[in-house]
């Protein structure tokens, strides 16, 4: 049951199921899966649409979202987070469909002035951990939207 992948907790960009998400991020695009038939976003990615069983496709979304909720993590629950605490990890609700919530870091801001449902926007940054030296993955993170 233990995770033996050496790059953990970096995401596994070679996982074919999720690779388009990370390939998109590397190009500065936020990609989410959508049902070809229902035309609704489906998140997390699944083998097929949970409503109609048709294929899903990856589509680009705007990267605009609202801050659904967040936690300020103060205790490092994994060794990789030890030199990162405190950090803000959040769920952001996409403007295209607020039922889709992305998990990510909120960056470029102190936690104090954050407020629930406030607008945020995507930025693409390298994610790296001291426990996985020399490696990084470009991922979507979010910052308060400029008014």
């Amino acid at each position: 049951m233990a995770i033996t992948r050496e790059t953990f907790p970096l995401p596994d960009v070679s996982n074919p199921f999720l690779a388009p998400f990370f390939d998109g991020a590397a190009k500065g695009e936020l990609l989410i899966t959508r049902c070809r038939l229902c035309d609704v976003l489906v998140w997390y990615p699944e083998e097929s649409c949970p409503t109609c069983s048709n294929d899903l496709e990856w589509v680009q979304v705007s990267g605009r979202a609202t801050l659904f909720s967040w936690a300020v993590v103060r205790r490092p629950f994994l060794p990789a987070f030890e030199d990162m605490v405190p950090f803000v990890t959040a769920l952001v609700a996409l403007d295209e469909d607020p039922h889709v919530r992305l998990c990510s870091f909120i960056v470029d801001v102190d936690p104090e002035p954050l407020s629930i449902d406030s607008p945020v926007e995507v930025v693409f940054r390298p994610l790296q951990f001291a426990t996985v030296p020399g490696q990084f993955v470009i991922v979507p993170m979010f910052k308060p939207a400029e008014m």
Partner: protein
Amino acid sequence: MTRSAWGHAVSLDDINGKVAIVGIGETEYTKVSGRSVTEIGAKAAERAIEDAGLQPTDIDGLAYSGAFPGFGVPEFHDHFGTSHDMWTTPWGGGMAWAGTVPYVAARAIANREASYILNVFGVAWASERAQMTGGPGEVHATQTAKQNLEVPFGWFPQPVYFATIMRRYMHEHSTSREEFGALAVTLREHANLTPGSVFHAKSLTMQQYLDAPMLADPLCLYDSCPISDGGGAFIVTSAERARDLKQAPVIVLGVGEGYSATGTNWSQQREFTKTPQIFSSPGAFAMAGLGPSDVDVLCCYDPFTVVSLMQIEDMRFCEPGEAGQLALQGHLRFDSGRLPYNTHGGLLSHAYVLGIAHCIELVKQLRGSASAQVEDCRVGVYGGYTGHMASTLVLGTDR
């Protein structure tokens, strides 16, 4: 089956009055103990069989946790030196399944597959975590979506999920930290009254709660349950046979089972500050022919303070957002006469043995032998909740 956007209830046959709990056994509840799950299960089984006044050879059914196995039929025979045929099911143990296993047992008993079914659950996460394996987080980190779309972003493990749920809950209901604190303090007081609880000798004040370090703001140390070692067991048989046994039978009046459509992907659960107890509890109360106002004692699976508040609301003991006020006004205390709640101290202050001790506490309350005994206690309810699944078990004295 009723479906809604974010979850559903399972429709169950009426088993009201058909089976009873006739024996209970508990191990010592500790922090790191070096005990294995198998040793814990064996000790709990031994004590439950003794409590019921039965012999190991009377036990012809064994329910265990398929998710966290460790004490099954081979281990049973190994421990007791027996070799008889036993019916067995992995749909037992603790967590939400502690609430549904009496239903599974009732079906097996009705089908004459078994007569006396022992449900066993043990956990040794304190000892396993000291060796850097096991623990509640590891199970989640192995799931593809979580491992790649949540963990790398620091949204891991459970204290972080529930800190995020807690913040949204506080926003929706204007809940104060004191409301969560009142719940934590009440459960600690119950544990202080209950010998054998891990925190029996350790008091907790509101000031200590408010001053405690944050694990993941807004969730502090005392919002989160500790990891422990320990376990328990109970024996289910037909109500008729129960009446000939040593202990006053505790009758199973109702069982409910509900699921969240998004499973343990809390991040995507449409109703973020609710639990599938919404789907589970109505069926259990309907089967029992009772409602929340008939309940004398309630025990819910409470890994975090907010999980208690949400379940109390989802079971309709109060309106959404009002459970914190129940705690603050003292209505959850064992002697309140209102809604005595987790009278042994719960996962938060008794022991993190994943719900099995909650069910055992209810049996004690209904026998009149609990430490923090509720007066004239006739109906007790267990709310099980493991993220993807909730269960509701309504128990009563023999009328």
